[in-house]
């Protein structure tokens, strides 16, 4: 009995000591010469193709450090492999927060992995900034004030297409092909919501799904053609987007073809599918498509190429992920710069919440990053673009989800 009492007291004492430790330190993760920023990425496992984003961010911070750092402090970017599995993400994020004591988490990648740490980081009050996922739930500052998204979410994009269809093709017969997971379903929901229940019932004539492990989607395309659809909403990742564009072309199906932003790359989708077959595709963009020849002489593009050659020469120049990571790292650097000398977690979050009309070199002209205490969705603008056989030609006005 007595030993248990002593043990309990000991436990309590240690617990109290542990709880007060962070208070004793000045600001967590920050010294006079460095700022610790934590990240997790899938460097191994099924989603390891995304790992290049984590690497290019590291390369960008190296460039920042070479140029003197942020307000005299070097960025110490610590990135661990989570293999895209939630338990590993929890372990690695706890390591970053409790052991490495990072000032903030940045660009942790993946919807399931971020879901696993969502509650924890908000309990610990660690800035969880610009997460790399297209899910909608990250913009919820009321319940999760420390988490902030980055890219436009999939539902928003689905709504953009819906508005365009309602305006230009009121009699459309829509056929949808989507991947059977939360990514595909988010796009589908966006389209349904954008059309409205009555219109969705009337206009959508067929919905087909595929599994990410399927070898081909040929039969789905044939079914969609036979359904008489004249508008095709194509929610597929690059491998299947190539197949869909080719197959539709081969069987002579010529709908108005909306291709999701996920597969808008010229190098990995449109060229393999055939530029002729891709003519007339419509997508929504917020970044410059780096394999699009129209940006060859763009300053932002050229700076990026120079950066890639110097700091990340093993990275591919036709991988949009490398432009994505570069751009989001620029935003993070800006947030740190705005913090000045106060790099407390509260101030990092406050500065991340006060981005006003920030333009970044690889975002489409006119797209601006905006955040506030009630708006944790930094990029909410997109513009429609049509493929003219050579490049994505943007048209129409900028769509802004924040205003609708």
């Amino acid at each position: 009995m007595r030993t248990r009492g002593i043990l309990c007291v000991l436990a309590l004492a240690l617990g109290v000591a542990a709880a007060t430790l962070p208070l004793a330190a000045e600001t967590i993760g920050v010294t006079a010469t460095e700022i610790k920023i934590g990240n997790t990425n899938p460097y191994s496992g099924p989603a390891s193709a995304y790992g290049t984003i984590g690497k290019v961010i590291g390369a960008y911070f190296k460039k920042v450090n070479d140029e003197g750092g942020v307000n005299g402090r070097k960025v110490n970017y610590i990135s661990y492999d989570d293999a895209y599995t939630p338990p590993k993400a929890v372990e690695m994020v706890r390591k970053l927060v409790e052991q490495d004591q990072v000032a903030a988490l940045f660009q942790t990648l993946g919807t399931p992995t971020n879901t696993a740490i969502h509650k924890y980081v908000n309990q610990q009050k660690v800035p969880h900034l610009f997460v790399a996922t297209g899910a909608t739930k990250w913009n919820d500052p009321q319940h999760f004030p420390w988490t902030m998204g980055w890219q436009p979410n999939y539902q928003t994009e689905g709504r953009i297409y819906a508005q365009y269809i309602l305006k230009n093709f009121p009699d459309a017969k829509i056929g949808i092909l989507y991947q059977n997971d939360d990514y595909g379903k988010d796009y589908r929901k966006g389209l349904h919501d954008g059309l409205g229940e009555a219109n969705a019932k009337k206009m959508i004539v067929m919905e087909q799904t595929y599994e990410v492990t399927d070898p081909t989607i040929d039969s789905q395309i044939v079914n969609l053609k036979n359904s008489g659809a004249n508008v095709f909403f194509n929610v597929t990742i690059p491998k299947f987007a190539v197949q869909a564009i080719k197959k539709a072309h081969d069987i002579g199906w010529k709908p108005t073809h909306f291709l999701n932003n996920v597969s808008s790359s010229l190098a990995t989708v449109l060229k393999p599918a055939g530029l002729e077959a891709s003519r007339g595709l419509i997508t929504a963009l917020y970044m410059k498509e780096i394999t699009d020849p129209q940006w060859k002489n763009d300053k932002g593009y050229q700076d990026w190429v120079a950066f890639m050659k110097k700091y990340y020469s093993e990275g591919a120049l036709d991988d949009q992920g490398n432009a994505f990571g570069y751009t989001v790292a620029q935003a993070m650097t800006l947030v740190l710069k705005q913090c000045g000398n106060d790099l407390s977690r509260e101030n990092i979050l406050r500065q991340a919440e006060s981005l006003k009309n920030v333009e970044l070199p690889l975002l489409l002209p006119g797209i601006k990053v905006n955040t506030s205490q009630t708006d944790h969705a930094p990029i909410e603008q997109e513009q429609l673009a049509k493929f003219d056989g050579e490049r994505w030609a943007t048209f129409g006005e900028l769509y802004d989800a924040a205003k609708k």
Partner: protein
Amino acid sequence: MPLRTLRLGVTLLAVVVALALPFTLSNFRLFQFTQVFIYAISLLGLNILTGYNGQISLGHGAFYAVGAYTTAIMLDKWNVPYGWTIPVAGLLCLVAGFLFGIPALRLEGLYLALATFALALAVPQILKYFENWTGGSQGIVLSKPTAPWGLRVNPDQWLYFLTLAVLLLLFVLATNLLAGRTGRAIVAIRDNPIAAQAMGVNTALYKSLTFGVSAGYVGVAGALSALAVAYVAPDAFNVFLSITFLTGIVIGGLASIWGAIFGALFIQFIPNWAQDIAKAAPWAIYGIFLIGFMYAMPRGIAGAIRLLTARAWRPRAEPSGAAPGSPR
């Protein structure tokens, strides 16, 4: 029997150290050790099947997933107290494992490995299919259990103690199971099924039962992992998990109770160390560790330790050091 005294002493020492850890380590380290215990439970389960009974399974990640989802669904949908979900997960997996064990009787060695591999491949997709229950690819977010009875330990410490208690219980059960008649029958089936049958062992029943018990252990581990991580999602239970389990029992030592602990330590910490050593190629480093371990200790860590202690205690024993009843 001095060797036995030594074993008892080491076991007690290990338990004492394990009990002291929560008061010396940070919460993050405790979480890592909680995961080690969880892995140890699944490795022990798989070892009963593969190490003792000779049935190779590449699909135990599936039972781990079933255990985890049983706990998650019971907590999420029915608000069952979490303590009850652990035995339920174990029992459910025991039954599922037993039923899977019946058709598996027709498959031997590598064929069984392939059949179970299919199980591991199928489970993530099946989980996505029953979206209403499993939350699809979004998974289910849970709350971390807090300590009952007003104990003054934080959730990490509580989970650590809970997992340790379950681990000890299951280790004692496994030791008793394997030391007695049943254990001899299980090993006999591995070593020579025909002879075992001739001795009156009902091989079909024992093989299915072993499969069930093994799956039950892994199910309990899955349930604990759901509590520790406080989140379940299909991506956590991919094929790689099943392969990791198999790696763990081979490294730890086939047909060894203690091997489960060593194997668990290996699969928890070596990948992290590999990452610390070389960021660019952690899996290459991991591979080197793996080859190094297998080369230096072909019978796993437990096998090597057994060999060393046997030599130390009986310096003039046969060089093989194999005691009766030890693994092949």
